[in-house]
C-alpha cells in the first residue's frame, strides 16, 4: 500500500505523515525517539525540535539542504561503522527511502503531527455524479478513478440479502425472505430490508459477539487452574445494549465506569463487567499481588487497543519506543483502574443472600470432608492411592465433588458401596444441603474503592520495584482531562474517552466496524493508530465516517445502516484481473471481499438451515456436543455435561468458553480464547477445519437434521437437491452443480442401499461447501 501511495504522489510534494514518518518511526525511533532512557546521543527524531536541534554545530536535518543534514549523511555513508541504522540494528535504508528523505529535506523538511493525534477533519464528501449512493461512495470512487480503476457492479439480489443478513444477524436468510426481496420492486427495497434486519434481536447477538472479542469474554478464570466463573449477565447486557442501540458514548461510559454514574442502575453496574473479563491466576505459590497488577495492566492495554487504538502496554516497562507515551503516563493511566475493587454482584434478595452465606460454607466443608474421607478410604483399600485403584476410579476422584457428572458419581458409588462405608449417608446429606442453598444470578463487576490505592511507577515494569508516586491522569499528547475537584476517577476517564476533542475514539471505532464489513479496516492496523501503525487508505473517508458517529447521536445502528447501504458495500465480490493486478489486497475496494464466516456463525448457519436452531436470546452459557478428549491437555480435567433439549442447539456465542480449552469447533475457525482482547480474528483455511465440518458429531447431527427437513419439505430428488442447496446458499444450483449432487446422491444410495443415510451424506456435502461458510 505504501508503494501504491508513493507511485501516486510522484510529482507531488512529499507528504511527511504518509511517506517520511513511517521511515523514521520504523528505522530510527527505537534509539532516537520518545524513550528518553534509551535515547542515543541525546538525539530525537520524533519531534520537529529534535530533528533540527543544533548539536555541536550539526543538525540532523537542515531544511532545504540534504547534504548538510547529518541524518542524510549518516543513512547514505559508505562507511559501515558510521552508517545508520547500525548493522546490528537493521539493514541500510532502501534507495527509495533514501530518495524520499532527500526530496523531503530539499523541499524544506515540512513537519506534520502524527495524523491520528490531529483533530478529526470536518469534511464533506466530494461531489461525484455517478455510481454513488451515500457519502461513503465518492471517496471510494475518486480514489479508484485516480488509479484508472472502476468500481464493480452491484451484487445480485440473492447475494446481497445473504451478505447483509450474515453481516447484521449472523444468520442466513430463509428462502422465503430471499424470494420476497428478489420480488420487491420498490426503489427502497434494500433499505427496507436493512431496517428490518436492524430491529431483529439477533442483531445484538451478532454484533455483541464482535464486542465480546474485544472484551475478552470467557466463562472461566484462565491460567492453569482455570476455574469456572459466572459473568454471562455481562454478555447479555452487551447483546441488549446493542439491540436497544444504546448510544456508543454511553455504551463506553457504562462499561468503563457505570458504577460511578449518579444513581447507577443494576444494568450500569453489570456493564462494568467489561473490565472484569481479565484472567485470574489461582496457581499455588504465586504472589497474588503480582497477578492483580497483571489484571490492571490488562485493563490499561485493552482500553488502549479498544478505545484509542494505542499500544499503551508498550509503556509499562519503559517509555514507549515509537509513540509519545511515557512510562509515567502509563502508570497515571493505570492508577484509574488501580483505584477499583473487584467484587461479585449478587442478584438475590437480601434473605437469599443471607441464607447463601450460611449454607454455602457448610456445604463446602462437607464436600471437602467427603473428599478427605474418600482419599483416606481409597488409600486404605489400595495401600497406595495411585496404584491399585482402577484408572477410571482414580480419574473420577481427581475431580472435585462438584465437577463429577451423574454417571461418574454412580461409578464411584458402585465401586465403594460394597465396602460398606458411610458414603451414601454423606452424599445424601450433601445433596440435602445443596437443595437448600438458594440459587440466584451473580456477575463480576468493578467498584470504586473508598480509599484510593497508592500507585507507583514500577521500574522496568516490575511491581517489586516501585518508584515515583503518581495520581490518575491521561496522555499528554491527547486532549486534556476535564477539570474535576479532587482525584480523577474512572468516570472522568470514561468521559475523557468520549469527549468531542478525542481524535482517536471515533476513528478507531468506525474503522473496526468497517473492518467487519470489508475484511480489512481503512487503517489496516486496527489496534494501532500510533506511528508504527498503518496509514489510512482513505484518510478523508475515515474522518468523514468518524464525524458521522457523534453527528448521528452516536447511534451504531445508524453507522451500520450507512455502511451497508453504500454502493461500496453493495458491490459484487467477484475478482477482476485488472483490479487484482493493481491492488492485490483490494485496499481500494473496487469490489467486495469474500469473507469466511466465523466459527460461531458457521455453526449458527448450519443450525438455521437444518431447521434446528433454538433462537432464544441470552441466559447462562450452554454445552453443545464436543468430541471426547478436549480436556486431555488441560491441567485440571473438566466435566462437559452436554446440554440436552433446546440448549444443544443454541447459537455459538452461548457456548461455554473454558479459556484453557475452548470448544474445538470454534477454536479451529479462529475464535479467540478470551485470554486477551482480540481486535481482529484471523481467517485461516486449514485441514482441521475440514475434519470438523466433515466428522464432528455436532455437524453430523445437523446434516442429518437437514436431510430430514429436505426429505419432508420436497418430494423428488431434483427438488430436494435444489431445495437443500437453496437453503444453504440462498441461490438455486447451476445445472452443473445440481448434476454433480445428483450423481453423488445416486452413488450414495447405491452404496448405503437406503435413502436416509444417502440424503444425510448429500446434505453433509452441502454443509461443507466453501460457499456455505463464506459471506460473498
Amino acid at each position, binding site marked *: 500500500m505504501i508503494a501504491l501511495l508513493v507511485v501516486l504522489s510522484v510529482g507531488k510534494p512529499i507528504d511527511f505523515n504518509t511517506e517520511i514518518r513511517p521511515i523514521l518511526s520504523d528505522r530510527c525511533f527505537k534509539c532516537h525517539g520518545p524513550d528518553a532512557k534509551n535515547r542515543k546521543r541525546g538525539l530525537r527524531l520524533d519531534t520537529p525540535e529534535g530533528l533540527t536541534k543544533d548539536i555541536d554545530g550539526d543538525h540532523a536535518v537542515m531544511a532545504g539542504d540534504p547534504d548538510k543534514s547529518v541524518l542524510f549523511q549518516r543513512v547514505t555513508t559508505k562507511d559501515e561503522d558510521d552508517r545508520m541504522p547500525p548493522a546490528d540494528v537493521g539493514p541500510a535504508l532502501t534507495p527509495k527511502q533514501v530518495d524520499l528523505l532527500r526530496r523531503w529535506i530539499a523541499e524544506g523538511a515540512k513537519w506534520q503531527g502524527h495524523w491520528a493525534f490531529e483533530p478529526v477533519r470536518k469534511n464533506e464528501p466530494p461531489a461525484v455524479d455517478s455510481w454513488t449512493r451515500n457519502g461513503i461512495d465518492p471517496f471510494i470512487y475518486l480514489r479508484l478513478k485516480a488509479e484508472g480503476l472502476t468500481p464493480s457492479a452491484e451484487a445480485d439480489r440473492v447475494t446481497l440479502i445473504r451478505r447483509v443478513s450474515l453481516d447484521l444477524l449472523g444468520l442466513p436468510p430463509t428462502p422465503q425472505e430471499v424470494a420476497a426481496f428478489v420480488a420487491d420492486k420498490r426503489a427502497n427495497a434494500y433499505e427496507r430490508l436493512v431496517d428490518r434486519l436492524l430491529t431483529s434481536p439477533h442483531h445484538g447477538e451478532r454484533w455483541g459477539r464482535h464486542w465480546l472479542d474485544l472484551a475478552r469474554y470467557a466463562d472461566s478464570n484462565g491460567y492453569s487452574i482455570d476455574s469456572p466463573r459466572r459473568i454471562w449477565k455481562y454478555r447479555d447486557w452487551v447483546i441488549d445494549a446493542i439491540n436497544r442501540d444504546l448510544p456508543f458514548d454511553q455504551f463506553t461510559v457504562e462499561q468503563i465506569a457505570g458504577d460511578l454514574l449518579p444513581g447507577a442502575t443494576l444494568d450500569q453496574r453489570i456493564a462494568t463487567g467489561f473490565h472484569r473479563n481479565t484472567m485470574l491466576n489461582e496457581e499455588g505459590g504465586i504472589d497474588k499481588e503480582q497477578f492483580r497488577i497483571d489484571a490492571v495492566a490488562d485493563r490499561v492495554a485493552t482500553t488502549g487497543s479498544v478505545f484509542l487504538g494505542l499500544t499503551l502496554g508498550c509503556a509499562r516497562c519503559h517509555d514507549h519506543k515509537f509513540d509519545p507515551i511515557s512510562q509515567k503516563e502509563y502508570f497515571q493511566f493505570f492508577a484509574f483502574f488501580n483505584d477499583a475493587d473487584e467484587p461479585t454482584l449478587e442478584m438475590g434478595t437480601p434473605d437469599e443472600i443471607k441464607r447463601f452465606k450460611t449454607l454455602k460454607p457448610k456445604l463446602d466443608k462437607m464436600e471437602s470432608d467427603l473428599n478427605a474421607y474418600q482419599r483416606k478410604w481409597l488409600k486404605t483399600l489400595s495401600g497406595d492411592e495411585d496404584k491399585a485403584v482402577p484408572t477410571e476410579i482414580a480419574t473420577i476422584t481427581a475431580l472435585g465433588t462438584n465437577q463429577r457428572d451423574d454417571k461418574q458419581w454412580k461409578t464411584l458409588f458402585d465401586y465403594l458401596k460394597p465396602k460398606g462405608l458411610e458414603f451414601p449417608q454423606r452424599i445424601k446429606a450433601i445433596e440435602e444441603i445443596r437443595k437448600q442453598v438458594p440459587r440466584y444470578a451473580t456477575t463480576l463487576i468493578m467498584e470504586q474503592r473508598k480509599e484510593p490505592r497508592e500507585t507507583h511507577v514500577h521500574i522496568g515494569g516490575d511491581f517489586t520495584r516501585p518508584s515515583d508516586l503518581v495520581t490518575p491522569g491521561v496522555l499528554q499528547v491527547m486532549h486534556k482531562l476535564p477539570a474535576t475537584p479532587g482525584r480523577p476517577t474512572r468516570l472522568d476517564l470514561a468521559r475523557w474517552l468520549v469527549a468531542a476533542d478525542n481524535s482517536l475514539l471515533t476513528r478507531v471505532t468506525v474503522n473496526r466496524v468497517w473492518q467487519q464489513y470489508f475484511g480489512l479496516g481503512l487503517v489496516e492496523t486496527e489496534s494501532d493508530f500510533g506511528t508504527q501503525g498503518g496509514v489510512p487508505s482513505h484518510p478523508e473517508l475515515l474522518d468523514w465516517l468518524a464525524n458521522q458517529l457523534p453527528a448521528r447521536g452516536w447511534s451504531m445502528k445508524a453507522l451500520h445502516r450507512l455502511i451497508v447501504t453504500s454502493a461500496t458495500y453493495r458491490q459484487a465480490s467477484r475478482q477482476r484481473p485488472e483490479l487484482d493486478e493493481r491492488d492485490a489486497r483490494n485496499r481500494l475496494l473496487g469490489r467486495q471481499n469474500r469473507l469466511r464466516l466465523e466459527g460461531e456463525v458457521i455453526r449458527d448457519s448450519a443450525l438455521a438451515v437444518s431447521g434446528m436452531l433454538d433462537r432464544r436470546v441470552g441466559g447462562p452459557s450452554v454445552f453443545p456436543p464436543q468430541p471426547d478428549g478436549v480436556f486431555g491437555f488441560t491441567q485440571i480435567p473438566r466435566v462437559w455435561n452436554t446440554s440436552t433439549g433446546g440448549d444443544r442447539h443454541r447459537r455459538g456465542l452461548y457456548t461455554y468458553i473454558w479459556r484453557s480449552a475452548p470448544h474445538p469447533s470454534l477454536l479451529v475457525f479462529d475464535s479467540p480464547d478470551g*485470554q486477551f482482547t482480540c481486535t481482529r480474528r484471523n481467517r485461516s483455511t486449514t485441514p482441521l477445519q475440514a475434519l470438523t465440518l466433515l466428522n464432528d458429531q455436532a455437524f453430523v447431527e445437523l446434516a442429518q437434521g437437514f436431510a430430514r427437513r429436505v426429505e419432508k419439505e420436497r418430494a423428488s430428488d431434483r427438488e430436494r437437491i435444489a431445495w437443500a442447496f437453496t437453503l444453504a446458499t440462498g441461490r438455486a444450483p447451476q445445472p452443473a452443480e445440481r448434476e454433480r449432487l445428483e450423481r453423488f446422491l445416486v452413488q450414495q444410495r447405491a452404496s448405503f442401499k437406503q435413502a436416509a443415510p444417502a440424503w444425510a451424506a448429500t446434505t453433509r456435502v452441502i454443509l461443507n461447501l466453501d460457499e456455505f461458510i463464506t459471506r460473498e
Partner: protein
Amino acid sequence: MSQSQHRTRRHFFQSCGVGLGKMALAQLALEQGAQAAVAVTDPLTARPSHFPAKAKSVIFLFMAGGPSQLELFDFKPKLQSLNGQPVPESFMKGKRFAFMDTFTKDVPKLLGTKRTFARHGQTGTYVSDIFPHTAGVVDDLTFLNAVTTDVFNHAPAKLFCNTGSAQSGRPGMGAWVTYGIGSESRDLPGFVVLQSGPRGPRGGAPLWGSGFLPTAYQGVPFRNVGDPILDLASPPGMTPERQKQAIGAIGDLNGMRLEATGDPEIATRIAAYEMAYRMQSSAPELMDLGSESKATLDLYGPEVGKPSFARNCLLARRLVQRGVRFVQLYHTDWDHHGGPGQDLEHGFEKVCHQVDHPISGLVRDLKQSGLLESTLVVWGGEFGRTPMGEVRETTGRNHHIESATMWMAGAGVKRGVRHGVTDELGFAAAEGKVHMHDVQATILHLLGLDHRKLTFRFQGRDFRLTDVHGELIRPILA
C-alpha cells in the same frame, strides 16, 4: 520474513501434491492472465531457511513442573556436606521465589541430595543413579548445566520457555518454526504436541498456540485415547470409500465456485480437504505400532504398549521420520516440593522411571536409523530447583530460575560436551551461563533460521521468538 499478517488475496501456491481440478486452475490462469501462474498448496509447504540447516526436525522433551537438576545431573559434593545448614544470606538477598510467604519465613536450609552420582561414558559425565538408561547414552548428549530463565511460576514459566514470553498470546516455538520453513510432511500437521503424565501441562493450549501467526501454524495435539486428532475418524457408516466420494464431490463443487468467483482462497480450501483426507489414513497409520520390530519396541522400555511417555517417544520418532517439523512432548508431574506425591524420593522416582528408559530408547533409535543426523532432541523443563530444601509433609525443592540443566542431542550439536557450571552449591551459574532465550536462538539456528530475522509484524512491532534477546550458544555447535 516480511510475510504479511493477512495473507494476500492472491496466494502463491508453489508446490502441488494436491489434485486440485486442473480445469479450474487452467480456467483461473486464463482469466487472470499469465502473471497469475497459480500453483496450489497450503501454508505449511516446506520453504528454504535463512541459511543451510543442520536439523530438519526437532523433538522437544519437556519435563513439565521443573525437574530437579540436583537429583539428576548437577552433582554438588559441597551441598552434601552442608546439608541442613542455613543458606548463606548473600544467596537470598533481593531474590524472589514461588511460595514466598512460607518459603522465606525462616532462612531456608540447604538440602543435599540422597541420590548417588557416578561418572558415565567415555566423557565421564555425572549422572545420578535414578537415570541408569540415560547414563548409557550420555556420550551422545550435550549438557547445558547453567540455564537461567525469567519467571518462577509454572504457567508463565512454561509460556516463557515455549513462546519466549511469560504473557500468553505469542506463538509457540513450533509455530514460529513452521511459519518460517513449513514442514516436509504432506500428510500430517507440521507441529505436533504429545502429552503424558497424570494431567495436561499448566498453561494449556497457549503453549503451542499460533498467537498472532495464522492458525495454520498452531500445534496439533495428538491424543492418547480415541482418535489422535479430534474429529479424525469419519462418522459411523462413512467408510473410506464414501468419505472419498464426499470429498470428491465437495472438491468438484468448490472448483466450480472457484471458477465463478476467481477467489484463490477456494483453491486453498480444496487443498485443505485433500490433506484432511490423507490425514485420516496417515494419522492412524502413525499410531499403529504394528510395523515396529520387537527390538525397536524394547528400546523404549516396558510401557511402550500403552499411552505413556515411552509410546510418545516412539511416536515422536515416527513423526520426524514422516517429515513432521516440530514435535513437542510434555510429561507432567515434575513439581517436587515435598507435598503428597511430590517428594524427592517416591514421587520423583516414579516420574524418572517413566522417562529414563524411553529417553535412552529414543536417542538410540534415532541414532540407529540415522535420523539423529537430521533431528535435534532437546530435554528440559520450565525452570530448575533450589539447592535449599522446602519442608512440607516431606522434603522437596522450590522453583528456581537461576540454575537448571537442559541437554540437546543430534543434528548440529557437538556430542558429549558439558557447557556451563554452577557454583559449588548449585545455586547459580558460575560460568557458561545461558538464558532460555539463548536456547531458543540456538534451536532456530540449527534449523537454519536466524532468530533476529524470523519476525512477524503485529500491532506495529516486529515480534520474534526471542523478543530482543538471545545469543547463540556457540561452544556447543558442531
